């Protein structure tokens, strides 16, 4: 066969791969829809059955039952459950204009009972702060955990390995909010190196919260890297690499590490979501203005729309992050890719078989 034909086939092969990757992503997105609907339904149901009456809470203490009923009508709270859930998803257009909102799909769930600002306005305003904290913690955890995991694995059973293993064990057992307070006690109260309150404008003040948030992940990822590395080093293909004359450094970093990191990447991915959630507690400890503080404030003030919006928002971001990680994972590991480009391989095989 000619080179042109070869190149042509290679190109179509490439296109098919891209095409099926797209299909894979779409399929995953479609799978996500019922899950997300379920999540929103659960969160909505929880608020629906919660004992407090939002209308009564918004009115002055001495309001009459008629006034409360009137407000309930204006807010659409007198409608049946299904209708209210429908409004929650797709918007509400009440008798007046003051309680209208466009629904979850448009990221609009009305206004806070407390501040009277659009709930998602506050969330979107503060979300970058949470993202910044999460991102810093993620970077910290990766930068610390992977090298320590490798060191620990390549020096199995040495003192270094023991030290790393014990540190990691303690790391996974420490409540983040307590670690945060301990760090404040040591580094803010006693040593005065860092401020005890964090805000996104001052990068130095985010170091302690980022460390706090990163601790658990760092510990989990270190353990994962270590055990994955030890597992991979035992594999036959590592022996093959050695038998080829590859030096120890390249055996570890070229042949073993990349394989060992495949499960670690999955764990890191799953952890990204956890970090986002962990931020709720960490932010509270450092009074950092993120989604976590919004949520906790709202819960303490029984600000239903704000609670609903922040919980749903975090849950959605969590689900999307995990989806993104899965897709990324498929790009990294050719074996996963094989699951959805299997058809392509067979076609290629047939063509190859038929040639000459």
């Amino acid at each position, binding site marked *: 066969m000619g080179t042109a034909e070869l190149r042509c086939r290679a190109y179509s092969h490439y296109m098919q791969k891209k095409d099926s990757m797209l299909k894979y992503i779409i399929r995953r997105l479609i799978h996500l829809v019922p899950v997300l609907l379920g999540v929103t339904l659960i969160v909505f149901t929880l608020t629906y059955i919660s004992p407090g009456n939002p209308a009564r809470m918004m009115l002055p203490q001495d309001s009459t039952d008629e006034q409360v009923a009137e407000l309930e009508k204006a807010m659409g709270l007198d409608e049946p459950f299904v209708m209210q859930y429908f409004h929650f998803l797709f918007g509400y257009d009440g008798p007046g204009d003051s309680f209208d909102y466009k629904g979850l799909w448009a990221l609009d769930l009305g206004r806070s009972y407390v501040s009277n600002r659009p709930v998602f306005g506050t969330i979107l305003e503060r979300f970058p702060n949470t993202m910044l904290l999460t991102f810093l913690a993620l970077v910290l955890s990766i930068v610390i955990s992977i090298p320590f995991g490798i060191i620990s694995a390549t020096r199995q059973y040495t003192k270094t390995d023991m030290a790393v293993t014990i540190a990691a064990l303690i790391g996974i*057992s420490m*409540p983040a909010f*307590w670690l945060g307070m301990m760090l404040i*006690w040591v580094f803010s109260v006693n040593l005065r190196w860092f401020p005890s309150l964090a805000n996104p404008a001052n990068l130095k003040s985010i170091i302690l919260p980022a460390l706090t948030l990163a601790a658990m992940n760092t510990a989990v990822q270190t353990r994962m890297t270590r055990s994955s590395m030890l597992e991979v080093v035992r594999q036959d293909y590592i022996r093959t690499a050695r038998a080829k004359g590859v030096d120890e450094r390249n055996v570890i970093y070229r042949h073993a590490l990349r394989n060992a990191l495949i499960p670690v990447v999955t764990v890191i991915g799953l952890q990204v979501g956890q970090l986002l959630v962990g931020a709720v507690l960490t932010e509270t400890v450092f009074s950092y203005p993120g989604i976590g503080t919004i949520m906790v404030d709202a819960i303490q003030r029984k600000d239903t729309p704000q609670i609903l919006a922040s*919980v749903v928002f*975090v849950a959605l971001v969590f689900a999307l992050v995990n989806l993104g990680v899965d897709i990324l994972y498929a790009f990294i590991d050719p074996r996963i890719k094989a699951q959805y480009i299997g058809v392509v391989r067979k076609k290629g095989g047939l063509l190859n078989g038929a040639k000459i």
Partner: protein
Amino acid sequence: MEQKYKGEFAEFWKRYRRNRLAVVGLALIGLYVILALGADLLYSYDFITGNQIPNAFSGIASFAEVEDGGTVRRHLYLLGADNFGRDVAGRIIHGARVSLIIGFVTVAFAVVIGGSLGAVAGYYGRRLETVIMRGADILLAIPNILFALAIVAALGPSFRNLLLAIGITSLPVYVRLVRASVMTVKDQEYVEAARAQGASDFRIILIHIIPNCMAPVIVQATLGIAQSILSAASLSFLGLGIQPPSPEWGNMLSEARSYIISAPHTLIFPGLAIMTVILAYNLIGDGLRDALDPKLKR
């Protein structure tokens, strides 16, 4: 038959014992259980919840005159006193009782309900399985602590709601775990044989299938207890769990937070208590995994 079980247990214990850290974990939990059981003997509940304002912030290992049950006596504040002059050590020990109960009850709830759902899904398959597994997927899609937080926020903070929230959020793991085990076991010959002899589905699930998927469930449950205790402490820290003056490690930390400068001991010890209990359960979980993993049997 009994002989055989004894032998199996001895074999298991031999393997478990090989992991020294796991033995340390077991000893730690044993210690906490003893302290929790003896909590009332060591410190009366009224004493550790009542105010002793004059002794507020007494230091570690200090003595003070206290009023306890109508009499005045000299009392040793082993780990110091908090802002209300309450004994920190006593509150930690009473708090241990709460934490151990929460850990046990929530996980027992999750294992029984989640395990049953998983067994039913795995055994019967079809529509029932689809419904149950979709449900589990949805529950899994909401991060545990967030979900628990939402439940307690909606239903109001109380001990029962806390247990319910943590129990529900730990459920889906067991659904998946048991379903997966059941699916691998259900077509094995001895199950086919039992079915051929006319055993009822319930009997088959109970006698033949459940015992065969115990190992992963036991390991997961141990780690799950650690997770539950952590969640409970976190929620209490946020003011959504056990309410003061009831002693609970999370709410102790929440109160101590304001006294970080003047009374760091009120902050350090409850945290250490949480950490050691969780560490102990994690160690036991690791040990159980190694000891129960048939792949590692020699």
